[in-house]
Structure formats: structure tokens, C-alpha cells
């Protein structure tokens, strides 16, 4: 794994101009926080609160309107060479290439890294096997179930051995059992590899099940609450929910924002 670096978000703001009407839309109002290396963080907020925009800026696909995101002191926007192999994302839909087999889909990120072919194949095999797809190396995406496709996408992200792993509502479209299973595997693998993991979800319950820290986004994105879960057990869900509601109330924020 490439060494995880801290993620520093300072005064981040993003305003879009709508292409059809020319109207300005604020996706991110103001964000300031820091994620330490190795943390597992859940970001929770309503649909359309700018969580995905935040990820786009984090990955370097979008430039912020104001403020900055820095990862280990570097700005991701446009710096594809500097960040190649350091961040990997599992997207909302699997985004597999339909013309490539499972194995070749996992290889994609490794091709970008310029690894020798034998090594690409070996590492891709290994990750697919670890995610239980050892028998489906040559299967095309349309031959796999939704859950299996998302496993391939997870293998693709982990295979580049990034220091930071992102999941953008990656499990929301799957059935409950498969979703929680994959989420646990994702978080478990990230922890085992010492990587920083940031997961986006729109459900508080899911967020509580995930990591050591929950960031609650308002709409448009501002930081409503920053809750550290260390010390709580797995059965303290109700307690945590109350704690988060309380945090929101002391900040005079309507808890219904999280519905």
C-alpha cells in the first residue's frame, strides 16, 4: 500500500453554473476538517447534499470554487501523475468496462501504474480470489450479478494498493444482506491494509455501522456534526443516534435534515 496521507479540507466551496439556465447552484457551502491517515470515516447527508461533488474534488476531477483540499500537502485537481495509485474509488454503479473480463477490469488500474503484465495478472487474480470471485476471472460483467460486479469493482480499487479508498454510495443499490456484507469486507480490507477509507452514505444507521468517525453534511454541504465513535460498541446504535441528534440540536440544526 502506498503510505496514507492526511486529507486536509480548508474553506472548501463549490458553486456550479447550470448549463441550461445559467443559474448558480451551490453544491458545497463551506467545509473544514481533517482526516488522519488510517481513519475509517463515514460521510452522511441527504441525497443531493454535495457529497459526490466533494468526492469529485477529492479525486481531482473537479476544481473547487474556493478553498482547498490537500492530500499529503498536494492538491489533487489535474495532478493525475502525482496521485496515480494513491487514491482508488468504488463508485455508485460498478462502472466496469463491459468489453473486459473480470480479470481485465481489475487490471485496468494496474495498467495505469505501468506494472509488468505478469504482475498485473497475478495481482488481479489474487484480489478477485480474495473477494470470492476466483472462479469468475474470465466472466464478462453482464454474466455476473450486481453484487459480484461490485466485488470486481472493489477488487479493482484494492489492487492498486492505494493509501486512500473511497466508496460513493457503493452498496446502496444492492439488497440489504449483500450490501452489509460487502461494506464489512470493504472496511475490513481497508483496515487490514492500513488504508484511510472514506464512505459516503445517506443513511445514518449505515454510517454508524461503518467506522470510527461520522461526518454529517447539511444541504448544501456544510459540516453539521463531526462525531468520533471510538469507545462505542457495535450495540450502541440507539445511543449513538441520540448522541448525534443531540449534537445537531446544540448546534440548532434540525435533525430532520437527516431523514
Amino acid at each position, binding site marked *: 500500500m502506498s503510505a496514507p496521507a492526511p486529507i486536509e479540507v480548508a474553506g472548501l466551496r463549490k458553486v456550479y453554473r447550470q448549463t441550461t439556465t445559467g443559474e448558480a447552484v451551490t453544491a458545497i457551502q463551506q467545509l473544514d476538517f481533517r482526516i488522519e491517515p488510517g481513519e475509517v470515516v463515514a460521510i452522511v447527508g441527504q441525497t443531493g447534499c454535495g457529497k459526490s461533488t466533494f468526492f469529485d474534488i477529492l*479525486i*481531482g*476531477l473537479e476544481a473547487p470554487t474556493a478553498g482547498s483540499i490537500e492530500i499529503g500537502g498536494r492538491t489533487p485537481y489535474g495532478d*493525475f*501523475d502525482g*496521485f*496515480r*495509485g494513491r*487514491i*482508488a*474509488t468504488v*463508485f455508485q*454503479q460498478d*462502472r466496469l*468496462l*463491459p*468489453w*473486459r*473480463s473480470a480479470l481485465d477490469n481489475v487490471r*485496468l*488500474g494496474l*495498467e*495505469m*501504474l505501468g506494472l509488468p503484465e505478469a504482475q498485473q495478472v497475478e495481482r488481479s487474480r489474487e484480489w478477485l480470489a480474495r473477494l470470492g470471485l476466483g472462479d469468475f476471472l474470465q466472466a*464478462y460483467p*453482464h454474466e455476473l450479478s450486481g453484487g459480484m460486479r461490485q466485488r470486481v469493482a472493489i477488487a479493482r480499487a484494492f489492487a*492498486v494498493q492505494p493509501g486512500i479508498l473511497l466508496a460513493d454510495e457503493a452498496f446502496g443499490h444492492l439488497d440489504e444482506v449483500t450490501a452489509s456484507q460487502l461494506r464489512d469486507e470493504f472496511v475490513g480490507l481497508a483496515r487490514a491494509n492500513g488504508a484511510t477509507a472514506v464512505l459516503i452514505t445517506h443513511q445514518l444507521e449505515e454510517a454508524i455501522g461503518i467506522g470510527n468517525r461520522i461526518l454529517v453534511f447539511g444541504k448544501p454541504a456544510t459540516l453539521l456534526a463531526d462525531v468520533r465513535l471510538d469507545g462505542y460498541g457495535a450495540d450502541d446504535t440507539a445511543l449513538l443516534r441520540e448522541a448525534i441528534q443531540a449534537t445537531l440540536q446544540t448546534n440548532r440544526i434540525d435533525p430532520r435534515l437527516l431523514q
Partner: protein
Amino acid sequence: MVIALRTASLVVFLLLWEWAARVPISFNFPTPWATFTALIELVWSGALLQASLTSLQSLALGFGAAVLLGVPFGLVMGVVRPIGRVARIYLDLLIALPTAALIPLVILSFGISILSSAVIVFVFCAPFVTMNAYGGVRDMRPRLVEMARSFGASWGQLFARIVLPSALPMILAGLRLGLSRAFLGLIVAELLLSPFGLGRLIMDSRSMFEHDRMFATVLWTLLLSGAALAGLARLEGRLLRWRM
């Protein structure tokens, strides 16, 4: 089952043809049998092969140029949007234009030669080949590009690994459409202008009232283009195996 149906349709077609020749629509409408014997004669004498070689030269030149220029240009149109937006107006016009109307112009510029029929073949098929390559890039899913960029793909990698493979089905469909248009252009050119190849054979037979020979040549042209299209379809099946 499919084979039985196809055979049945062929039999029905031949029966209809035979009937049409007997109920004289016109006294010079040849029966299937007369056409087949004429075809065998033409093949045997070498006249048909000679003509085919000449025609296929124009076809290969025109269609080959359309593929080599049209596909890359269509891809550029798709990737560099401003170029696409301007060039597609001209391509739309070329597609809407009754292409045969350009033939006198082509003769004026290129004279009566194999080259001029190749140019006409090119004009017939290039717009379609180009438009499909362009459409293939435009229909690409932007989410896949985003995904590849998130893994740090360079522009070259994006093109080779995402843009080209996702445009490939449309490009290949364009080649098939283009090839059938190329045959159309070839015969039109040879009928209307250059005394070469299969078109000439058709015209000669017609002027000699050898309607069985004329029909045989038409049938042969049909077989040729059918074989070429089937070849392309096979290539398509092989390259797009992932869709099965």
C-alpha cells in the same frame, strides 16, 4: 429450424421468379434456369471474373480510403467537440444529397477511369463510416471516462482503453452500412460513367438483348456484396464477443 425456413423462403422466391418469367411481364424477363446457365457460362468464360477484378479494385480503393480517413476523422470529431459540431453539418448534407448527382462533377475532375469510380464509391460510403465513428464516441458513457480518470489514466490511455472500445460497435456497424453503400456506388458509377467492370457487363448485355446474361451479372454482384457483408459480420462477431 432457421435453415428450414431460409430454404423455404428461397424456394418460394425461385417459384415466384419462375412464375413471373412465364406470365410474360415482358418478353425478355429470363427464367431462373436461364439465368443460372448464363451465370455458369459467364464464370466459365472468365468474363465475369475479369469484370469483378476490375470492379473490386475501385471498390477496395474507395471503401479502403473511406475507412482509413473516415474512421479517424469521425473519432476526432467526437473527441474535439467544436470540430464535430462544424463537420457534422457537411456530413449531414452529404448524406441527404442524392450522391449520384455528383457523378458528372467527378468525371470532369478525374476523367473516365477506375480512379473516378473509386472516388464515387468513396463519396457514397465515407459520410456513413465517418458519422458512425462520430456517433460511437458521442454515445460513450461519461461515467466510464470519470472512472478511468480517477485511476489516473492519461489522455492516451483514455482514448485507447475507453473511447475506442466503447465506440467500436458503432464503428463496425458503420463499416457494414458503408460497405453496402460502396457496392451501390460502384454499380451506379459503372453504369453511368466508366466502361469498366460489372457495370459495363450489365450495360453490354442489355444493349445486346442478352437479358439472361444481364440478370446473371446482377445476381453475381448480389452474391459478391452478400459475401463481403457476411465477412464483415463475422469480424464484428469476433471483435464484439463480449456482447454475447
